[in-house]
């Protein structure tokens, strides 16, 4: 990235807006052209619309998983409760966990990764826009598929880690586990496609001058997460294939009678499952690493340390999986080894927390909503992290594993950590995405209710765990003395419900007020931001950037607003809203496509076939293969489709910025027909 002479205000040179007539190759292989209405969403390849759809669908599943959790909490209100049957309860906690992990937190992170990462690196879209749409639709159909099991004889009753041999046909004869296995398999395909796409985007499509050491910290954390996905998902894929072979084709991978070792499943699951924990939390670490500096008006303290601790977590996350199995009978040497590795993964995590505090230290802290959620992440995640260190003491963990202490721990990590960070991200980027702020008063009510409800719901679980309440038990005896804290916890869960209703109301009300012109359109740079997404109008124009920004340092946009004067004092030299791009160009953009959504339908159909009738699988596979042809033969609508394919502006000898920006645009469009 040696090209830095580019003038910031120079307009991208493009043969933009030329009317073109696409070759009408084969009749059906046309591209959709709608720019508004529902079709524009179904067939879009725009990373922003895809990001928004990830977010909306994830929030829907958040609601579903929340209802599941509330039913569980109602059941646990008192001893020997009989609101739910054992089977109903088992289905609910299984689907609550599976839904929250795979259909809420992961896609919410994917929503931000899709929407924000291209903006932060100054790109016009992701590297492979149609693959991006494909990943979205596979995810959507995978989520629907997983939840179909509610209506086909009952969802899986095995917990989200679905241990063998309980998951085998002998002990789980219904189709629930099949839906679980294929649901996760389909969602895994979506995540793999997405991860490859985002890795290529981040590594190849950064604005000229944005070296890795200049890259925004959120983009960094997303990059680490995509590598974790890329390497961990194949492991769960293998495990799920073995499970399916056992259940549908009579194999014996987990059949103890035939000499199988059921711990094989646990190893495979947790080799995926532990990196998965970091897949869930690192995006939120990235978000607060953006918001804490912005709302403290200070740069991130120790950017390099934070980046490397993120990478360190990514690597070390592969060496700790067996701490989920301290009670499994691994033998003392293995337990001791994994106990030690687990201790040390606390080091990079602790580094992050202290760097965040140091970022705020000496700052000028504005209590805007994103900041409030970010600060609560720092506090709440710390609690979850510390109980994690307690679990690293393996002997002590044998009293805590599979008890409510663990449930408290991972909710402090995943709710107090991941979800708090994602809420911070929503309030932070809402004006960029939708063009207006969310109501601050309602937002504050939301914040305080979440914080109080969260601590009331999950704080008591620490006590319940120490009192010996085992998780996944649909009732408990009176003698156990669990009812007081279970009641507090249930009340807390309902406080969270109220908080989320306030949030939903805020979204609807703010949107309505914005439509009616009662609240103003947000400026390009409402928070005095540091990264490139704030250098373009709000909401983001369809083409993102009028011209490719050129970056010379970390927080480049902020340094365009502030500089040291002749007395060596830092002063504001420009307002972000004034120097932002105008968003008035109309460059050519990747065309929408029918094929991602069509191809995605093939996956659940093929999976249903394995459960019910293999002929249906053939239909599903035909759809997938046929769509590949449609995909490949789709006509390009690019007016410049004949121009040379130089996707490597940094390799090319170049004497100016034009070349770089044109190449980058070309990379975007070239990819769309690959």
């Amino acid at each position, binding site marked *: 990235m040696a090209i830095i002479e580019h003038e910031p205000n120079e307009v991208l040179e493009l043969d933009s807006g030329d009317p073109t007539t696409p070759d009408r190759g084969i009749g059906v292989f046309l591209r959709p052209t709608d720019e508004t209405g529902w079709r524009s969403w179904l067939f879009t390849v725009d990373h922003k619309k895809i990001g928004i759809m990830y977010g909306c669908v994830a929030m829907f599943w958040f609601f579903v998983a929340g209802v599941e959790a509330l039913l569980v909490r109602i059941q646990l209100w008192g001893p020997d409760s009989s609101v739910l049957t054992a089977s109903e309860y088992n289905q609910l906690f299984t689907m609550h966990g599976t839904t929250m992990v795979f259909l809420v937190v992961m896609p919410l992170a994917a929503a931000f990764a899709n929407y924000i990462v291209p903006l932060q690196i100054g790109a016009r879209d992701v590297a492979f826009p149609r693959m991006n749409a494909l990943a979205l639709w596979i995810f959507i159909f995978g989520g629907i598929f997983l939840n179909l099991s509610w209506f086909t004889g009952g969802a899986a009753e095995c917990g989200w880690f679905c241990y063998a041999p309980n998951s085998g046909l002998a002990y789980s004869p219904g189709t629930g586990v099949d839906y679980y296995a294929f649901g996760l398999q389909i969602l895994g395909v979506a995540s793999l496609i997405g991860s490859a796409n985002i890795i290529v985007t981040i590594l190849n499509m950064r604005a000229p001058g944005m070296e890795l050491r200049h890259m925004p910290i959120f983009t960094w954390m997303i990059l680490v997460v995509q590598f974790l996905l890329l390497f961990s998902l194949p492991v769960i894929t293998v495990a799920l294939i073995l499970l399916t072979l056992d259940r549908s084709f009579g194999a014996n991978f987990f059949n103890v009678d035939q000499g199988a070792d059921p711990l094989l499943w646990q190893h495979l699951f947790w080799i995926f499952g532990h990196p998965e924990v970091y897949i869930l939390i690192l995006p939120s670490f990235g978000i607060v690493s953006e918001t804490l500096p912005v709302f*403290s008006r200070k740069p991130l303290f120790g950017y390099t*340390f934070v980046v490397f601790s993120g990478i360190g977590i990514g690597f070390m996350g592969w060496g700790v999986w067996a701490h989920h199995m301290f009670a499994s*009978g691994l033998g003392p040497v293995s337990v*001791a080894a994994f*106990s030690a590795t687990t201790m*040390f993964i606390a080091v990079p995590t602790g580094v992050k927390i202290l760097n965040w505090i140091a970022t705020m230290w000496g700052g000028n802290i504005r209590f805007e909503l994103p900041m409030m959620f970010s600060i609560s992440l720092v506090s709440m995640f710390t609690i979850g992290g510390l109980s994690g260190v307690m679990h690293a003491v393996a002997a002590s963990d044998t*009293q805590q594993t599979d008890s409510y202490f663990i449930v408290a721990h991972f909710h402090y990590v995943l709710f107090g950590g991941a979800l708090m960070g994602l809420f911070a991200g929503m309030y932070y980027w809402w004006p960029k995405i939708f063009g207006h702020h969310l109501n601050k008063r309602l937002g504050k009510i939301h914040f305080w209710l979440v914080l109080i409800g969260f601590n009331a719901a999950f704080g008591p679980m620490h*006590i319940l765990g*120490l009192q010996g309440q085992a998780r996944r038990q649909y009732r408990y*005896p009176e003698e156990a003395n669990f009812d007081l804290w279970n009641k507090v916890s249930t009340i807390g869960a309902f406080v969270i419900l109220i908080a989320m209703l306030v949030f939903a109301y805020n979204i609807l009300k703010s949107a309505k007020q914005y439509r009616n012109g009662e609240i103003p359109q947000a400026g390009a740079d409402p928070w005095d931001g540091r990264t490139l997404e704030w250098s373009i109008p709000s909401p983001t124009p369809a083409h993102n950037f009028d011209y490719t920004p050129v970056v010379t340092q970390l927080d480049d946009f902020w340094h365009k607003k502030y500089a040291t004067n002749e007395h060596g004092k830092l002063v504001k030299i420009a307002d972000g809203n004034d120097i932002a791009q105008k968003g008035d160009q109309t460059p050519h953009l990747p065309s929408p496509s029918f094929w991602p959504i069509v191809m995605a339908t093939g996956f659940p159909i093929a999976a249903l076939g394995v459960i019910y009738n293999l002929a249906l699988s053939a239909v599903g596979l035909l759809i997938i293969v046929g769509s590949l042809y449609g995909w490949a033969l789709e006509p390009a609508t690019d007016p410049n489709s004949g121009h040379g394919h130089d996707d490597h502006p940094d390799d090319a000898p170049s004497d100016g910025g034009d070349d770089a920006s044109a190449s980058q645009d070309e990379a975007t469009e070239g990819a769309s027909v690959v």
Partner: protein
Amino acid sequence: MRASSAQRSPMRRVLRPAGLAVAVGLLTTGCTEGGVFDTLNPKGENARIIDDLTNFIGIAAVVVGIVITVLVTYVVIRYRTTDETYDALPEQVHGHTVAELTWTIVPAIGLIVVTVLSLPAIFELDSQDKDDITVLVEGQQWWWQFSYDLDNDGEYEIVTSGDIVFPAGQQVNLQITSNDVIHSFWVPELNGKKDAVPGLHTPLKLHADEPGVFWGQCAEFCGLSHAEMRLRAVALDDTDWERWVSEQTTAGVIPDGQDVAVQRGYEAFGQFCSSCHVVDGVYDSAYENEPPLLSGIAPNLTHLMGRTSFAGGIFELYNDDGTVNEADLLAWVRDAPGRKALAPDNQQGMTSFAEQLSNEQLSDIVAYLSTLGEAPILP
């Protein structure tokens, strides 16, 4: 976007420390009112090793947590913006290598200390002395079976379920396994949990300082009735232990026919129950044919009345006044799936006899069951 005065209301300053105080308060009070599964109430050597570690790491975690929380609270209050300073630029500190190395290295050293201090317990808890009594613990959907090898000859002299009886004051070796799915054996007051994995024998030790009854439960999700798979660990003094062993090693006797109801119950048991349940010396043939239970065998009932509970430890066998809990026993024999989540259609658990057996037959069977073994020996 200007900060309003409401943002700097005392609310925030008060709530955060208050929340912390409440959390600490909850933890301390929570520690004092545990029930039968309390992990912080060790009653034996093994549990005490764990408890000492938990206290050590728990206090360390709470201290670090308080430090961080106080620090965060201080920072957000001390450096909050005001109307006057809203646009002010603080000093732009990008980092401090020495500080960062410090807070990388110091926690790492702390964790090394914790690791070194905590690892020996893993090996200590895992070691078993071969001379101690060995009990084979088998998890089944959804009850526990305990087989005793008292003389270390590889043969099991006693087979029981529900209550694991052992001598107080000495270590007892457990070999834990499963006949179906993975379970986890957990008596919180005596030791941590250990999974029962089919095909593996995982070691665990039981030790109780004093005679007593300690509750246990299955701690790994094992299917439908995971919540209703409990047990009692009964520690006896040496005299009681000897007495219990001698009682348990006597075979059952065929009723002499004096009590008509018992006699009829004995016959009905043979017809309806003995294909799954063994009564040593009376109905031994239960497992000669392929048992109709996928998850293994049904409990051995030879000394049923010597136990405190039945049906996976969820019903008391005796009322508070010491009489047999015939109501629950009858209801159980009549319609087990109506009393506990079972799936007899998938051969998981006892089937319902509500259709097959008349009320008279049911009470006859209960009458017969009441003759199986002596009353429990309790500390």
